[in-house]
């Protein structure tokens, strides 16, 4: 079920990096409590769009509001505390264990560390909780990323290619968990390469090409 309020509103949003356009006039609205899939070829602008929504790259021109915060003039640090980011590069301190990474995140956000055990159990990493992140497989690192986000409970989940390196069990697990997150009222935006996976995951597919939205299935 989607809410009436748009968590994301972009109008003619442009992001330049060293003069090169990463996003070239994106218009987009994403309602709260929805799951949207951003798809497109390599270099289409999927990661740039998600990074813009996370407040990780500056808006060059246009109008952009995320969770009610103006990306041009608002407090980006405040925005970042309200969004959750899971990148495809791996997102943790490699020399810390699963538990230590989550304790760090919890303490940084003033969250009780007592929840860590249940969150780790939910993502199926209990048997690896004292393993350093460096020793985890790619799929287990994704699961740790989900644990990090579950602990944080952000309003807006931004997942960049979360299905990369996942086996079928991992993909099914991800699908189920994202469904639960949306049912709980959060908004999820996922970037994905695979059109079949995109269609299975959500009825809303946003196709990017050359830094523009060329098709929006809503």
């Amino acid at each position: 079920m989607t809410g009436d309020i748009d968590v994301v509103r972009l109008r003619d949003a442009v992001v330049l990096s060293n003069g090169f356009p990463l996003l070239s006039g994106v218009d987009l609205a994403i309602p709260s409590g929805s799951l949207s899939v951003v798809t497109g070829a390599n270099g289409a602008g999927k990661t740039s769009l998600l990074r813009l929504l996370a407040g990780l790259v500056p808006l060059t021109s246009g109008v952009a509001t995320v969770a009610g915060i103006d990306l041009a003039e608002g407090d980006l640090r405040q925005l970042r505390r309200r969004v959750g980011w899971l990148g495809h590069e791996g997102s943790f301190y490699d020399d810390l264990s699963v538990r230590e990474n989550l304790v760090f995140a919890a303490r940084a956000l003033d969250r009780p560390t007592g929840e860590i055990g249940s969150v780790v159990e939910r993502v199926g990493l209990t048997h690896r909780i004292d393993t350093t992140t460096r020793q985890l497989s790619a799929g287990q690192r994704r699961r740790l990323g989900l644990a990090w986000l579950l602990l944080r409970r952000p309003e807006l989940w931004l997942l960049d290619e979360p299905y990369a390196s996942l086996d079928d069990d991992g993909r099914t697990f991800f699908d189920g968990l994202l469904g639960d997150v949306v049912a709980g009222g959060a908004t999820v935006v996922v970037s994905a390469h695979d059109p079949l996976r995109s269609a299975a995951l959500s009825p809303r597919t946003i196709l990017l090409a050359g830094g523009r939205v060329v098709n929006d299935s809503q």
Partner: protein
Amino acid sequence: MIRTALLVAAKDLRIELRSRVLLWQVVPFGVMALLLSGLALGPAHAGSSSAGPGLFYLVTLFVALLMINRSQAIESTPGTRASVATLGLDPAGVFLGKSLALCVELWATGLVLLAGAILVLHTALHGALVALPSIGVTLAAMAAAGTLYGALTAGGDGAATLLPVLTLPAFAPLLIAGERSFSAALHGGALWEWWVILAVALVVYLAIGVLLYGVLEES
């Protein structure tokens, strides 16, 4: 801010304890550099040379540059940087925490190098002990300045080579004051004026870091 600082410092020190880069790479490099300095002076001059304090700080400079790069490399993986950015940590606290962790690491390395200087360069034990407080303040100021400049170069092209170019002008007054203070402790002379210079430099670098670290992170 203090809470964030302690959180970040504990995290950095835990990573260092786990990875043992300091123990197995940085400290051996420093000891070897000190040993080579002693050999370069020759056995006849190592004990009587007044170059001991200067050589100690020169080796400490090399070691500090390695450790500053290491301190920033912990945060430089693109995914880690983005994930940690979404925690919304107070940048002043992050600066103080990273400076504190780097300072503790520099103090530990400094003690080993000082012991090396006593053994290899025949630096007088009593003078080295008298110099300890000024060495501590010098290394603390280097940690603060290094954290600031490390953030400036982190993630950029050629960060490892750009860092020494940027930091040397900032470190120069610290090294000069540190060396003078160490020499005064060994050979006699006024100590307090060098201490004042070092303490002022420490406070200035800490203040600049607290005020500007957020801007550097964003840029």
